[in-house]
């Protein structure tokens, strides 16, 4: 393998990896604290992308404002979902899973009905390419990665330094004791689910600018994210970051060496092996 080609593949992998990280973070956060898998995650991601396109491209809202608005709208949707649809069936694993499946297919249907099934391109705001030692990266993708890193750091500070973050960690460790100390489970669950939706929407908004948005854009990255949180350890935030980068690199290297099919098989086969021999993943506790 040539050095330039190797470097380009490496850069591509890291770039894809960071967008996976954002998506997997929301998923792993929700799993870690609420002990459920959110099957509507890919559709919340899709909604994030669509709202940015709708606000920025159709209604000429400022780009940054459009992303912020889109993320807030999806977080609000997340809040409503948790409050009215998930809370009544909390603890019933199968029903919670089915509810998120139903929500996912409903959002996909809604997006297709309102905005149509076709690809929508969000026009680029930062055109141009950086070239360095024969390796090329667009400003757009570089910006997505930087915003992604900023969000990860922000999330980390939120969980470690704020009172709400402390409540989240307490509820994760022991819901009953946390309740005794006045940290409401309901409030924490609402917060966690909204935050998860927010992260999904943010990655959708960033991905939408890099590629395109369409009603089914969320499914494939969501399935990959499932495998990422297995690799990293379900519920672990460092795990989601490591897992996202590993899967991004595997994607990029195996696709360019053996083709997309084999790369796909490989990611799932590795995740399958992990879940059998090391179900706690790389960073999971216990």
């Amino acid at each position, binding site marked *: 393998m040539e050095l330039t080609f190797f470097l380009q593949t490496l850069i591509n992998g890291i770039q894809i990896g960071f967008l996976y990280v954002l998506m997997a973070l929301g998923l792993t956060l929700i*799993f870690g604290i609420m*002990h*459920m*898998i959110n099957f509507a995650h890919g559709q919340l991601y899709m909604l994030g992308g669509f709202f940015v396109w709708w606000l920025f491209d159709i209604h000429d809202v400022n780009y940054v404002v459009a992303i912020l608005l889109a993320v807030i709208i999806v977080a609000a949707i997340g809040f409503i979902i948790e409050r009215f*649809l998930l809370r*009544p*069936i909390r603890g*019933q*694993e*199968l*029903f919670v*899973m*089915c*509810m998120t*499946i*139903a*929500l996912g*297919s*409903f959002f*996909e*249907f*809604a997006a297709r*009905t309102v905005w149509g099934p076709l690809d929508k391109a969000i026009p680029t705001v930062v055109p141009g390419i950086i070239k360095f030692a024969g390796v090329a990266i667009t400003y757009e993708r570089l910006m997505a990665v930087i915003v992604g890193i900023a969000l990860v750091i922000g999330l980390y500070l939120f969980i470690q330094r704020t009172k709400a973050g402390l409540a989240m960690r307490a509820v994760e460790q022991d819901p009953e004791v946390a309740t005794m100390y006045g940290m409401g489970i309901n409030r924490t669950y609402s917060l966690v689910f909204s935050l998860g939706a927010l992260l999904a929407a943010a990655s959708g908004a960033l991905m939408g600018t890099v590629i395109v948005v369409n009603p089914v854009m969320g*499914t494939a990255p969501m*399935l990959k994210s*499932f*495998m990422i949180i*297995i690799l990293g350890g*379900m519920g672990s935030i460092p795990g989601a970051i490591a897992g996202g980068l590993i899967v991004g690199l595997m994607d990029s290297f195996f696709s360019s060496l053996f083709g997309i*099919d*084999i790369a*796909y*098989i490989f990611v*799932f*086969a590795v*995740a*399958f092996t992990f*879940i*059998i021999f090391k*179900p706690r993943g790389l960073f999971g506790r216990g």
Partner: protein
Amino acid sequence: MVSTKLRSNIGPLVAIALLLVVLLIMPILVSSYWIHVLMLMFIYGILAVSLRQMLILEQVSFAHPAFMAIGAYTSTMLVMNLGVSFWLTIFIAGFAAGIVAFLLGLPVLRLTGPYFFLATFAFLEVLRMILTHYYVPFGGPMGIYDIPPPNPIGPMDFSSISHFYYLIFAVFVVTLLAFYSLERSRFGQSWHAIGQSHVLAESVGVNVMGYRVLAFVIACFFAGVAGACYAHYMTHMSPMEFGLHLAVNCIVWAVVGGLGSVVGPAVGAAVLTFIPQVFKFTAEYEVGVSAVIFMIIILFLPGGLVSLPQVILSRIRKAPGIGIVT
């Protein structure tokens, strides 16, 4: 007293007998299109009823279409490449699925909750991609064409849809009877005990792992048989059909119908296959409508559609001024 007991027993029996007769004379009554819909209902019913076995164990398997695919590909390849009779391969298909389920189940069934369904989902995707990627012998993404119908037996010629209908109907009835007798056996009790609390079941000496593996092998055997029937009926299949979409559908059928009884998932599969046929004029909205119906059932009718008559009856009895005062 005796007469009321007899009456309450005779009612359902008469209803079942009537339903059987109606289903048996169906090919005379309706067009071949509706026979096709009914056959899909039966095949989906077999999948949903067998998956229920895993759902009551609290093991949500996403790999059910994978075992259907194993059955379908095993049977098709044996018939088309080696010339084995379908009447043999339908059983081989079931056993192949059962053997793979046994080998997969040993490591995977130790997992519970999200870990189990993510593991089964990873297995489904790996298998589907292998079927898609290798043109020899699996036919690649286009799948396999021109699958022959089963050899004729006496007057039954299975290239005719109404004759094939009876075959699939028979397999469906056998599946229902098999799961009914399992439900009433010692196994059924142990399965329900494990489903309610596997820790408690283990502490009173139930071999949890053994029963899980047994349930998984039996459920996947029937998925394999359903796969063989499906392939030879449709005469064409591709790996796309055995993906996440079908895995989710199997779970949805079972939950919508109701997990409380063996027949519930079959009812769910039948209703959810029937609805899109009726609401064809609103095809655009069909997905959204079924998603909303599904949410309503999860929130307000946890026993599924089969519990609907009971819920309505108890509402009527409870309503003031209508019910009989006891």
